[in-house]
């Protein structure tokens, strides 16, 4: 079944690269101009009509975002992954909301986490996971997570002594419970 999908895609997109193939799984990489055509073709004529996930990888070494659309065919039990690279600066990826309304949630999440814009998504820019985020999008690899956490949330100063009595005195602790007091007296 997946062989037929592969053949059809290779005829239509000659520049297609095969990433990985198994008996019911196919991962292909297409040029970014033909990514939307490949997705529409997979949905309309190849039977992969369920959008399972849109995932993004920040490949900062190549200066690209690798977008992957995971499409599933439930009747044939096959999975098709279509990938494409988009440049990192002012990244714009076409929205799939017209085809799958459910793509809206994935795209809003990617917009918050990576700063990738999806023109055509009617709910773009609405709060999804982060509320009122003003810094660099946190899943980008040029975002300094630890530096941000130290700057915003601060750090608890480590203790100089290991004896908790130095810090909390006799307020709390087992030496202040009836059992503890008895033990102290026995000493």
């Amino acid at each position, binding site marked *: 079944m997946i062989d037929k999908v592969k053949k059809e895609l290779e005829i239509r997109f000659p520049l297609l690269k095969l990433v990985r193939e198994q008996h019911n799984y196919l991962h292909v990489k297409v040029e970014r101009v033909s990514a939307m055509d490949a997705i529409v073709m997979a949905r309309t004529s190849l039977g992969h009509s369920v959008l399972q996930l849109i995932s993004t990888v920040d490949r900062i070494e190549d200066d690209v975002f690798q977008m992957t659309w995971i499409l599933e065919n439930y009747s044939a039990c096959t999975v098709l992954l279509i990938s494409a690279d988009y440049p990192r600066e002012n990244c714009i990826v076409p929205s799939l909301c017209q085809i799958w309304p459910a793509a809206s949630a994935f795209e809003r999440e990617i917009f918050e986490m990576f700063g990738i814009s999806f023109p055509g998504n009617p709910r773009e820019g609405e*709060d999804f*996971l*982060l*509320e*009122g*985020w*003003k810094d660099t999008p*946190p899943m980008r690899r040029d*975002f300094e*997570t*630890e530096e*941000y*956490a*130290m700057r*915003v*949330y*601060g*750090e*608890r100063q480590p203790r100089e002594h290991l004896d908790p009595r130095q810090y909390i005195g006799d*307020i*709390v602790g087992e030496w*202040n*419970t009836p059992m503890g007091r008895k033990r102290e007296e026995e000493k």
Partner: protein
Amino acid sequence: MYCNQPPEKPGNKKELLEKITNMARANSLWVTAYGTGCGAIELRPLHTSRFDMERFGIAMRPTPRQADVLIISGYLATKTLKRVIRVYEQMQDPKYIVALGSCTINGGMYFDSYNTLNVLDKYLPVDVYVMGCMPRPEAIIDGFSLLMQKIKDGRAQGWKHYKENLDYYRENQKKIITDWDLPDYNW
């Protein structure tokens, strides 16, 4: 509906009454059924038959208006902190906070997360910390017995501390919650 003045401190005549009411308060702790992180999973065995916290007079309540203990169970994201503040401020006086796990003490394994706060007592007054990742139900029962002892001795005054130092807590809260839309606190 709002009062402008903080409540008056009890005079000498009220102190005896306060001691008696503290005895009663310590023996009927009602907990808001609100789990913030992974630690909430340890509360299920605690309030079902195996560990059975009702034998200590601790019961779960469905609404913050009826409860006087708020359990911060595990890591706290900034988005959750906003809801926690709202729940805490809706609770009736006196109210106590029990914080579970190393995440509330110093960030735990999420110390460098972009979205999880490190030191809880900058934002809310904590009466008892229970250490562990996650604390077992026995440890939580131990923490509750400590809280009972503190209430009986009149030392669980976190709610008064919150009122008296509201500016300090608000400043810290607003530092990390960038889209502040909570109503002003009323006494």
